Each structure stands twice: as structure tokens, then as C-alpha cells.
């Protein structure tokens, strides 16, 4: 049952991912992405990670997608701009490269051996609940990476501001 659910979610995620990048209409892409995010949340739920699933739905599906939609409506992409590709044989080279990558991944995945486990075993996570386990890990073991991840946001905000702000042509 769990495996069936996993394969359902996994296959849908892959299929939707492909559809999103091949879709011509950006609004359709965004709506499909909403579906994708819900299925990803399903995958997290299968891993007993209910906190991640909730965050996935609230932050990605709730907030970020709405931002995407706003941007799309503001930019108002009516017609597609078509340009001839710079490298003509790109399609086939890309296919070969992608296949090679896929084979490498698959070989890596099928020879995968699980390493030593950390302190958070499944039983322990179930006992203290996932949210608490994650909070503990983030605010103790990973506090420094967590703080520096905040710096990423700061830099992104400053960068976005610098690029979006209207130029005050003076001097």
C-alpha cells in the first residue's frame, strides 16, 4: 500500500515536472506546479515528515505560487518570442548527455548502500514527533547553517532590490 502510494506520487511528480516545462501557456504551468507541490507534500507525508509536508503546502503552494501568478499577470506575456537556437544540433547532443546522466544516476542508485544511521531513528522520530525532532535539530545541531541561510535571504533581498529599483539618474 505504501509502495503503491509512493509510486503514484513519484510518477505524478515526474510527469507533472515534464509537463510544466513543456507547457506553452505559463499560467497552465503555474497551476500544474500547484498540483506538483501537493504531490511532493504527499511524498513527505509518506516519510512521516508532516511538518515538511505542511510547510510545503503553506509556503510553496500558498505563498510562492501566488507570487508567480502575480508576476505572470504583471508581465503579461501574450505572445511567445521565438528565436532560432544558437547551436543547431543541440537537441541530439542534449538527448545523449541526458541519457548518459540518467544511466550514471541509475547505476549509482542501484548500487546504493545505506550508510551508518544518525541519532534520529524512525522510532525516535515517531516518539518525539517530527516537528519537535526537526526543531531540535535545526536550533541546536544546525543553528549556524540555519543562521547563515538567513544571510542568503538578505543577499537575495538586497540584490533583488538593487535590480528592481528605478534608477535615479542624477549627478
Amino acid at each position, binding site marked *: 500500500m505504501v509502495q503503491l502510494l509512493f509510486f503514484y506520487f513519484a510518477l505524478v511528480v515526474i510527469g507533472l515536472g515534464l509537463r510544466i516545462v513543456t507547457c506553452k501557456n505559463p499560467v497552465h504551468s503555474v497551476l500544474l506546479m500547484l498540483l506538483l507541490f501537493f504531490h511532493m507534500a504527499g511524498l513527505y507525508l509518506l516519510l512521516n515528515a508532516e511538518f515538511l509536508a505542511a510547510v510545503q503546502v503553506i509556503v510553496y503552494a500558498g505563498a510562492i505560487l501566488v507570487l508567480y501568478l502575480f508576476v505572470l499577470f504583471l508581465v503579461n506575456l501574450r505572445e511567445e518570442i521565438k528565436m532560432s537556437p544558437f547551436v543547431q544540433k543541440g537537441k541530439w547532443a542534449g538527448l545523449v548527455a541526458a541519457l548518459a546522466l540518467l544511466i*550514471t*544516476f541509475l*547505476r*549509482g*542508485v542501484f*548500487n*546504493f*548502500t*545505506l*550508510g*551508518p*544511521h*544518525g*541519532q534520529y531513528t524512525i522510532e525516535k522520530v515517531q516518539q518525539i514527533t517530527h516537528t519537535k525532532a526537526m526543531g531540535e535539530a535545526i536550533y*541546536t*545541531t*544546525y*543553528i*549556524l*547553517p540555519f543562521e*547563515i*541561510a538567513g*544571510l*542568503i535571504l*538578505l*543577499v*537575495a533581498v*538586497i*540584490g*533583488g*532590490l*538593487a*535590480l528592481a529599483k528605478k*534608477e535615479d*539618474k*542624477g*549627478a
Partner: protein
Amino acid sequence: MNNINMSFDLYHLWQVCGGQLILIVAGLLLILVDIILMEKDQEIRGRWMGWLTVFIFAATIGHLACREWDLHDTIFMNVFSADKYSIFISIVMTCAGLLAAMMSIGYLRNNGLVRGEYYILLVFAVAGAIGLIQSVDLLMMFITLEVMSLAIYALAAFLKDSSYSQEGAFKYFLLGSFGSALFLFGVAIIYGTTGTLNITQMAQYISGGSYSTLPILVAFAMIMAGFFFKMAMVPFHMWTPDVYEGAPSVITGFMATAVKAAAFGVFMKVLFVGFTPILASSGQPDFAATVNLSALGPYWKPVIWWLALLSMFIGNLIAVSQSNIKRMLAYSSIAHAGYMAVGIIAANGEGRMGVLFYLFAYTLMNIGAFGVVYLIDGMERKAQDLEDYRGLGYIYPSLSFLLSLFLVAMAGLPPTAGFIAKFYVFAAAIKEGYFLLAALGVLTSVIGAYYYLRVIYLMYMKEKVKDVERGPIAAPTVVALVIAALGVVYLGLLPENLASVANLAQQSLAMIF
């Protein structure tokens, strides 16, 4: 894991990550200063922000060189380490930041772009780069890599009126994110197979020998690909010419040096601490006992052999046919990545020392060259074609002389730092028996000499065809250029000092715990 209170206190953090802390706090203060100066005249505001940034970088270099150089310490369960190796590369990158900040004062004024965010992003970029080189933990590497990259993406797009800048930055952003994603994928596989993100623990696991090779190799390949994107090694170099051409000239110089130094430094750290650890001389008894230390060597050496060769050939050959000087220097930076990779393949002390020396020398000559390019340009893209350089030697003799010096150094001719750097790297490769690679490398640097010297030929032997009016020259730019030029000549004549320092730095790589 449980004694978290024991391992963390702020004073210790300041000791180990002082350089980063200075830059982060100063970056936050610069935001405030920018707001305070909002009402002031553009000219004053730009000058204040610029000089403050220069001062911050100088203070950071001082702190790194005086307070952190002798440290050998890690913090917070080995997330960051302070050792001579990290500090050496941190100093190289902060020097790049310092020179770039000094030139930016004039550059921004010439281009009518007085924006405080520029300096704030520059400070955060260097902070991220120092964090990247100090981290021993793959997760931390990813986070700091993103801090650095995001700041650089924004800086590359800073010329908002130029479609070249926008196009380049967009390409850089997309491909760079792709590279980061590859890196992250590799990290995830490493975490799955070895159960740790720390590269020293990973090395212990790998040297234990009880692992299946294939997942580790796949992860290793992904991590390498992620770093090669940032280094601009050949199959991952596609973004380089467009980005280097489009970005503001000073930022191009900074990108080509600081980002390359960060990527090379952290790649060597991952390689020689994590995947094929060089023997630790202290405190690791179970390391010394194993023979599996270089088990992965046969896998990565051929890969880097070919990539180094391709980088040298493709970089130098395509550079010959470029007509835009920034594009030409972009291809030359791909070739230089190839030369540095030769030092990595050698995988001996001389090779690592050579790469460190190369990074320092390359920082001086490359930022110097881009500084002259921006001065001759005046406004961005007014005079960037090689044709514009015809006859400049008689109109602007001092600028032409400086550019010639930097180009001669890049071509690797004595008596400049470029010659010594190439010499160290190739000598290390020959010592390990890579005769063919070294010979082909020297051959490609002959091709390289052609297009570097062609610029000098155009400047001195040709009549001018077009009036080129350079922009006003700012004093800090002159100081930065003179420092870079003196450094290039000094390192060419007396390389022993820096070489011995780089050697110390290289040796500490064996002792990261």
C-alpha cells in the same frame, strides 16, 4: 552531539570566523550608512560607501593575516575550520575584493551608477566566499556557496541599461543554479552512503574501505561538476564569455579571480581532505593505518587530466578569434583554470603550492587588466574592441604600459608572476610523470602568448583608427593598479616569500581535522 553548549561560544566563533564576522557585520552596517547618506549628494555618497568598503576589506585582510593565520581550530562540530590553507585563500579573495572596491569608486562614477547596494553586495560576496573556503561541512559549503553566488549574480546584472549585462547575468543565474543543484544532489548521495556531511568524517568512512564505490563516484562526479561550473573548466564553461563580457568590468575582474579562487580552494579541500585524503601527520591513527587513502585517485585523475587539457586548448584557441577584449580575457580565464587544474592533478605538495601561488598571482594580474580595460572604456562598452586599442600606446602611455605588463604576466613570460606560477604548476606535474600534459600545456601557453601579445602589438605598432577617449581617472584606481603591477613584478622577481607561505598553507591541508 549532545555537548552542544560546550562546543559553542561567541568568543570562539569570533576567533575562528573573525574574517567572516567582520564582513557580515560591516555589510549590515553599510546598509545603515547607505540609508543615512540617502539625502546626500550622489558624489559624496558613492565616495563614502566606496572608501568604507575599502577600509572594511583592509581590516579583514589585517585580521586574517595577523589573528587567524596561526590558528588551527574548528568550531561548532567542525562546521568551519581556521587553518593556514583556508586563511591563505581567504586573504587572496579579500585582496580581490579590496582591489575591486578601490576600482569601483572610479568605475561607478564613470558610468553614472552610484548605488550603495553595489558595495553591500560586494562585501557579502566576499563574506560568502570566505565562509565557503572555511567550511568543512558539505551542507555549509552549499549555503555559503549560495550566499556568494547570489551576490555575484546581482552584481553581474548591475548595468541595467545594458542588454549584455542582463543577458549574461541571466545565463549565469540559470547555469549557476543548475551547477549548485548538481552539487546538492551529490551531497545528498554522500549523506546517504556515508551518513555524514563532514568531509573529514567522510574521509574516515571512505578510507575504511567498506563502501560500494559507484554511489560515491557518482556523488563525487556531481560535486566536481558543481565546482567546475564556478571554476569555468571546459565542458562547464559555456556561460563564461557572455557573463564576463556583459558584467561591469570591475565585477568581471572580481568574478574571474575571487570566485575562481573560492571554487578552486574549496574543490582542493574537498578533494584532498575528503575524497583522497593526503596523509594526516597528527592525531589520526586510523588514517595512517589504511591503504585506501588514494583508492579514488585512479578515477578522478584521468577526468581532470582531460578537462585540464581541454580547458587549456579550447580556452586559448577560441580566445585567438575574439574581437572584444573582455571576451578574450574570459576565454583566457578558462585557459588559466586549465593551468591551475594541472597543479591539482599532480596531487603533490608542489602542485598544491603552485595552485595557491597561481591563484594569488592571477588575482593581481587579472584584476589589474580589467582595471585598465575599464579606464580605457570610459563608459562601459564604448571602447572594448581590440581595434580600439590600436595606437593607444602613444596616447595613453602609462595605461598601455600597465596593460602590457598584466598581459605579459598572463602570457606567462618572465620576469612576471605569471611565469613563476606556470613554472611551479608544470614542474609539479613533471615531477609526478605527467610529461605529455605539461608539454601540451606549454604548447597552449604559446598559443596564449599570441593573442596577449597581439594587444600589445596593436597598442604600440599600429596607427590609431578611432579616437578613444578614456574616462576620468580616479585616484583609488591608480593606487590599485600600481599595487597590482608592483605585486606582479615583485612575485616574478622574488617568488620565494609567497611560495614558502603558500607551502605552509598547503601543508596545513593534511591536518584539517
